């Protein structure tokens, strides 16, 4: 069952590559939150109740509900155009994301990943690199936040793969990280929106000392 959820997660990574509207990407992020809820629920059912409730809260309330609403608000408030506007064509995105998936399979077979399970490792690594790829290939600042959130999901899966031995501290760290990043980037986005008309990274090239 966990494997099915992880494969669904990998399919959602491919779908991000061909999604050409921002709202689609936000929906995918919400779905990924639900998938992570499923994985963590099955995986961590043995650990103590408080920790479990905390993780479930993090996946459902935070990843599935709060972040999509927040991102939608940012988009609506700043009148951001709904297309994703990548630097490279979508076809190349899909090819590169597929390459990332294959590469992470090969990497996980070359190196000895120890007590981390391989399926988790593959999906986590490919989520990390897909997030990075989305950050470098999309123009808008909002899309950078989305890529960052995909990276966060990858880190979450990687920490889940350690199983029930995961300390509470890692969790708190992840949540705090997301909170700070989304808030800071949100403020950043809003400020850019106030100063410049369009929110492209291209505008940053005009900045001088």
């Amino acid at each position: 069952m966990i494997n099915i959820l992880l494969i669904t997660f990998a399919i959602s990574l491919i779908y991000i590559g061909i999604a050409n509207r921002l709202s689609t990407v936000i929906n995918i992020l919400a779905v990924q939150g639900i998938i992570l809820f499923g994985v963590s629920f099955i995986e961590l059912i043995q650990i103590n109740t408080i920790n479990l409730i905390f993780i479930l809260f993090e996946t459902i309330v935070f990843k599935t509900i709060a972040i999509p609403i927040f991102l939608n608000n940012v988009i609506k408030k700043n009148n951001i155009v709904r297309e994703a506007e990548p630097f490279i064509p979508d076809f190349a995105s899909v090819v590169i994301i597929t390459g990332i998936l294959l590469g992470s399979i090969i990497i996980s077979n070359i190196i000895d990943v120890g007590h981390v399970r391989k399926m988790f490792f593959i999906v986590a690594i490919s989520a990390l690199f897909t997030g990075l790829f989305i950050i470098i290939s999309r123009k808008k600042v909002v899309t950078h936040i989305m890529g960052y959130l995909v990276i966060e999901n990858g880190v979450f899966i990687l920490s889940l793969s350690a199983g029930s031995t995961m300390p509470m501290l890692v969790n708190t760290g992840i949540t705090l990280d997301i909170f700070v990043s989304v808030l800071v980037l949100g403020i950043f986005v809003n400020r850019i929106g106030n100063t410049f008309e369009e929110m492209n990274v291209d505008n940053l090239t005009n900045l001088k000392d």
Partner: protein
Amino acid sequence: MRGLGAILIILTSFFFTGIVFRTKSIFSGRKGPGIFQPVKDIWRLFQKGNVYSETTSFIFRIAPNIYFASVVIALMLIPFGGQKGIFSFTGDFVFFAYILAVGKFFNIIGALDTGSSFEGMGASREALYSLLAEPAFFILMGSLALLTGYTSFYDIFTSIHFGSSISYAIGALASFVFVLIAMIENSRMPVDDPATHLELTMMHEVMILDNSGFDLGLIFYATHLKFAIYGAIIANLFLTPGKEWFYSIPIFIAVQILFAIVVGTIESFMARFRMSHNPQFIFALTSISLLIFLTVLLIVGKFL
């Protein structure tokens, strides 16, 4: 009883496209034509003579026949439940893919033979999209071959069995990929709109603009047969070999009707993609097939 699969596919092809049209008409609130209307249209075309352009050569004349013949040969390879197809040999799924490709090739050079610029454009698009859909089919069939250890349709479908939850996931994903490959190969909605009437946006339809009468009927009927063939492949995933024929045939017909309704529903609720969005959509199918391959590797424990 080797020919049972072929007979059932031919029977299905009579009403398959009719059900697709009927579903579309119900969703758009029209009364719509009857289920057998497409077959009646083809019968009407079969009674007509051909009109050939003076610029065309013999290639244009033989192309529809070869196209139809290739589809009929492909049809004979499909097994049904516990029965083999009329031909069955090791590696026949490769033969299946390339006999369909031969038909498509003749369709394409037939279109180029007319010298029309529109038809050349349509042919180029058709070639591109089937080129992109080919790896998806091969990776998928290769994964199934790896899972079962056999390389012919009959052996693959008889020895595939759904035990654990992950094999159900493979079955669902494989059906999904097969449905979309069937839509691409038959030039249906998400990539190509068969009802469009502007040459610049047509793909398959523009290639057959110069065909008329009997040839046009052959091409249309080959499309119906191809749909039924893909439906039969999907149905074979769910036909377990131990079952008697009186279970297998209703399952087969039910899967085909369900497939037709799914196609009609997709066509009713999806707009055609922009031409530039098609390649990434088709390539995403290859990516999903690769994930199926990964899952199979996980099951057989070869690599992971």
